[in-house]
């Protein structure tokens, strides 16, 4: 409290980590990797009723360079897996990944030759959402979990 009283009104002190985490967690722009049915629920998640804007995530960025959270929505085909990995590599750090739905998490019901049995075979996944397809509420929950995770990170302190 000492510094603040010395600086006068209009100042407050905080850790730089808390500030960045606060900013990052409330502006987690999704990279919608909409593949299949889950993509439609992801659209509903951004749509008027569920309104992802309440969590600062309404800005669906189709350019990987501008996004923070990749939402893999739908089953991942072997042919598509390469494109997904390439887009993930193009996203700037720090980045997070949500595997939305059973197919993206484990292959789900598509236990078949064409489908990668879970996108965690080639992506580091932070949150898995169950359901086939999950309701938009469940995706919002996953987004909140990602926000919680962002808030506990120590990015700047580790750098120094």
């Amino acid at each position, binding site marked *: 409290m000492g510094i603040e009283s010395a600086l006068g009104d209009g100042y407050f002190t905080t850790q730089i980590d808390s500030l960045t985490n606060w900013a990052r967690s409330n502006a987690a722009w999704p990279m919608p990797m909409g593949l299949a049915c889950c993509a439609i629920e992801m659209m*509903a998640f951004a749509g*008027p009723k569920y309104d992802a804007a309440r969590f600062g995530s309404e800005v669906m960025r189709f350019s990987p360079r501008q996004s923070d959270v990749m939402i893999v929505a739908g089953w991942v085909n072997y*042919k*598509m897996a390469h494109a997904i990995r390439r887009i993930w590599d193009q996203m700037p750090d720090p980045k997070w990944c949500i595997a939305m739905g059973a197919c993206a998490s484990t292959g789900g*019901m598509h236990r*078949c030759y064409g489908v990668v049995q879970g996108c965690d075979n080639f992506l580091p996944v932070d949150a898995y959402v169950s359901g086939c397809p999950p309701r938009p509420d469940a995706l919002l929950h996953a987004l909140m979990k990602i926000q919680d995770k962002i808030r506990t990170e120590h990015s700047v302190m580790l750098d120094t």
Partner: protein
Amino acid sequence: MDTKHISDQLDSKFFKEHQEKLYQALEDKHTTVEMMDQDDPLHTKMVLNMGPQHPATHGVLRLILQLDGELIEKVKVDVGYLHRGVEKIAENKTYQEFMPYTDRMDYLSPYANNVALCTAVEKIANVEVPERAHYIRMIGCELSRISSHLIWLGTMIMDAGAVSYFIWAFREREKVLDIYDQLTGHRFTVSHARIGGVANDITDTAMAMIKDFADKFPQELKDWHKTLDRNRIFFDRNRGVGVLETEDALESGATGPTLRGSGYAYDVRTFEPYARYDEVEFEVPTRLEGDNLARYYVRMEEMHESIRIIRQCLDKLPKGPVRTDNAKQAYPSKDEVYYSMEGMIHDFMMTDTGICPPEGAEAYHAVEAAKGELGYYIQSDGSGHPWRLKINSPSFKNIQILEQILDGEMVADTVVIIGGVDPVMGECDK
């Protein structure tokens, strides 16, 4: 130009052979894919890769466009980025077990896909369906057509530049999904139809919601017509764009609203009426122009007609069972399963082996899904699993015509044309 040259310059990180063949496919005896000429960049052709991850391709469609300035000279469409092999899965599942996979084929209108599979199995195995179930199926199918066309409206107009339609269309779509939630227990992958009927009857709440929706939705449609029908920007983007003549449409296998927008009234509901479509009155909207605007009018009219069909179904809805009570052909009701020994045994048998059509039987049955003729061909070997199940998917046929209609268009119109054809990749890629 020899093909080796391409492969040398091709800087691909994965599936080298695949990419090479794809680029080679652009070549014919008149054109060759030239690599960037260092001397005069204005004289070289540009090959533009679009997708598989692109917001306007409605999923994971990939287009390779060969451009001359802003004009598209030649297009190659690459599909298969969602291929998982459902036909292979079908050969390892019982007929009823396979039904949830049909939800995930055309995930914009899953109810129609359920009905398509069930009608095909009913045809091959001679299953009678109660009257009431037919009407419930028709209501479900028409609602799914509306929900699919709403996605088309939202995304296609968003691609053309108006984001507000995405919000409005999704607001209405949420109402349809809420009805499904009440009626079937899930928002959109419903799996509600069963072989021999439907899973459960319409509840009073669901009935009230459908009535309410049928009353209020036409007003909504009228408002949309008001803002779009005389909208200069919308017209300029769509009129005369992506023209497909009637003969070309038939020749190249277009189906659904794309075919009807080109002037041929082919609709399976009137062509080979299934369920009780011969007992309700409706029009098959058709347009002659064959451009994107014609497809817009056809789909908007179809939503009107769907509401009309739903109203008639609600009026005519007969009383009675919703599933056939022949225990060899359909699941027994839950009451029987819980309170009688036979019911439980039948339930077990249905889950274990399911319905067994006669050996060597073959059948094809099509329904009119939101995208067009959706047919299931089944060949049985006498067991509970199909020997071969082929899905004749409308999006596959409609995407094929993209290669034709994109020729000679401007590159900026690509997204509108894809939006107008309205493909679903999950169905196209099987």
